[in-house]
């Protein structure tokens, strides 16, 4: 549960605010004095601080500076509350480095929504941006672990690879181009690596750093890459015909386990009431490929069934759900399927569906690809032309 510290000497709205925060799943500690709050929280883990700017003893700005001087709070999100209407004051506050600025009076629903948005932003940022400078990052769909190993092997580089897939994070240690160790949860190094080979959705960050570590993986890179590629192929083949891996599956009422293998029985025993497919793979004691195969078998035999819970933001899930609903309804959802499928199909799949000829397409494509404009325009010049403080002001005005 996220812990929020709230500092304001106006306590008139604290009770409803606290109730609403707790209903939204936050733990809230309220203080009417900044110094008291500082004394109380300096040794605690806090996820967010919200403070009124104008306080009688220690004001919000001083509180913010003191908080930031404590190591544990160097990056803790901080929001100012204020009745100040002057833009200069607000920009000044935001330029101190606070994450948001909320003008009083506000609705409690609004502040809860802003806080949720802030936590979401922080999670996204942590996933994508908050990485040290010396390295590079990307998407595992575009560059998977095999590609990364091959790239680093070519340059005989030493690096720490940080991979993230759903809620799991793994590390791969590469010394002079050779994979020497890997860690993922409590798995042995080679098994950890094998699992990470199958991650084709998620993010990676490559930190170029000297690696001083004992070798725990004895397979040579060439062999690892062969195994990795084979596993990716097998994984994709098994996945074919399965719902997206973050689909929730549940046990059905089928009780007759005579048709099941011991592994299948074991897998069913280890299941909770509801499981995401990928979680089930991780839970299973056997190799991931085998686990996925077992799940596929159980789904086909009717011992497990996919539910429409956990609707995710991923496009494939979205389409899968639309398709599922379309099978139940012949009205709007069918339309949803046709339109969304059409949209998300890649351009290359659409040779026949568009009214532009192939020749015309080639001319356009070539012009995009080779024109000087490609380099001197968008990618290089399309920076964000406003500051974060200004963007926050725009968002506030729009809210």
């Amino acid at each position, binding site marked *: 549960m996220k812990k929020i510290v709230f500092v304001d000497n106006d306590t008139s709205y604290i009770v409803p605010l606290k109730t609403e925060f707790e209903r939204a799943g936050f733990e809230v500690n309220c203080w009417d004095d900044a110094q008291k709050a500082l004394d109380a929280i300096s040794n605690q883990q806090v996820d967010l601080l919200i403070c009124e700017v104008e306080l009688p003893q220690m004001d919000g700005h001083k509180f913010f500076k003191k908080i930031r001087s404590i190591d544990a709070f160097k990056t803790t999100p901080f929001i100012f509350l204020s009745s100040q209407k002057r*833009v200069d004051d607000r920009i000044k506050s935001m330029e101190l480095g606070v994450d948001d600025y909320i003008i009083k009076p506000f609705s409690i629903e609004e502040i809860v929504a802003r806080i949720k*948005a802030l936590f979401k*932003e922080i999670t*996204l*940022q942590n996933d*994508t*941006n908050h990485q040290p400078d010396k390295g590079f990052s990307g998407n595992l769909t575009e560059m998977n672990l095999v590609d990364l190993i091959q790239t680093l092997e070519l340059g005989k580089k030493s690096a720490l690879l940080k991979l993230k897939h759903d809620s799991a994070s793994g590390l791969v240690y590469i010394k002079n181009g050779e994979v020497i160790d890997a860690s993922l949860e409590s798995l042995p190094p080679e098994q950890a690596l094998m699992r990470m080979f199958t991650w084709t959705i998620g993010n990676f960050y490559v930190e170029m750093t000297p690696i001083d570590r004992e070798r725990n993986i004895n397979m040579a890179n060439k062999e690892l890459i062969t195994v990795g590629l084979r596993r990716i192929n097998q994984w994709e083949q098994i996945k074919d015909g399965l719902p997206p891996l973050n689909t929730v599956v549940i046990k059905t009422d089928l009780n007759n386990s005579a048709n099941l293998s011991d592994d299948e029985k074991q897998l069913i025993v280890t299941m909770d009431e509801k499981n995401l497919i990928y979680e089930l793979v991780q839970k299973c004691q056997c190799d991931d490929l085998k686990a996925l195969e077992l799940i596929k078998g159980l789904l086909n035999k009717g011992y497990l069934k996919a539910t*429409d819970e956990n*609707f995710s*933001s*991923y*496009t494939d899930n*979205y389409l899968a*759900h*639309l398709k599922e*609903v379309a099978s139940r309804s012949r009205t*709007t*959802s069918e*339309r*949803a399927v*046709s*339109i969304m499928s*059409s*949209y*998300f199909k890649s*351009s290359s799949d659409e040779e026949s569906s*568009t009214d*532009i000829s192939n020749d015309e397409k080639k001319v*356009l494509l070539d*012009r*995009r690809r080779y024109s000087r*404009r*490609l380099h001197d*325009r*968008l*990618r290089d*010049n*399309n920076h*964000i*032309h*406003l*500051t*974060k403080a*200004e*963007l*926050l*002001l*725009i*968002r506030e*005005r*729009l*809210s």
Partner: protein
Amino acid sequence: MRIGEVAIISHKASEPEDFIKSVCGSIEIKNKTVSFGCLEIDEQLALHLYGMNIENQNRSFFWDIVSRKMLGYILIFDWDDQKMLDAIKPIADNFSQSCEAPIVIVANIKDQTNPPVPDEFYKPEGILLSTNSIFTFGQIDDPECARRILILLVNMLIVKMP
């Protein structure tokens, strides 16, 4: 005066205009292909919205020149007319391939209180297509909804900021 610029692109002239009216209250400049509206954030900061109608335009339109300094793009299509989606798709492809600015793709619906898809698909926070693009349903002639769409764009920008 600091100015943020956003391009609102649609195959129908009326859609960017409706969107701009919803956000800014009125259209300040309007011609055959472009409409313009301004939302003053305060005395030092404003948001300029450029509505662009691609109805009679060639697909090779030089978006990269027109929209050089845009904060981001809002691409609108009529949910009830699949041709509109087909028309907007090359633009979306082009932007997503050649541009790092965020894109919000909006399926414009007539009545958001009665969305044409089951409730679970109608997510006000949109559906993340990539780190740079979001798909959402929306009723663009509703001011609150139009602002929500702009907020989605601004949120993507904020996430990108150091």
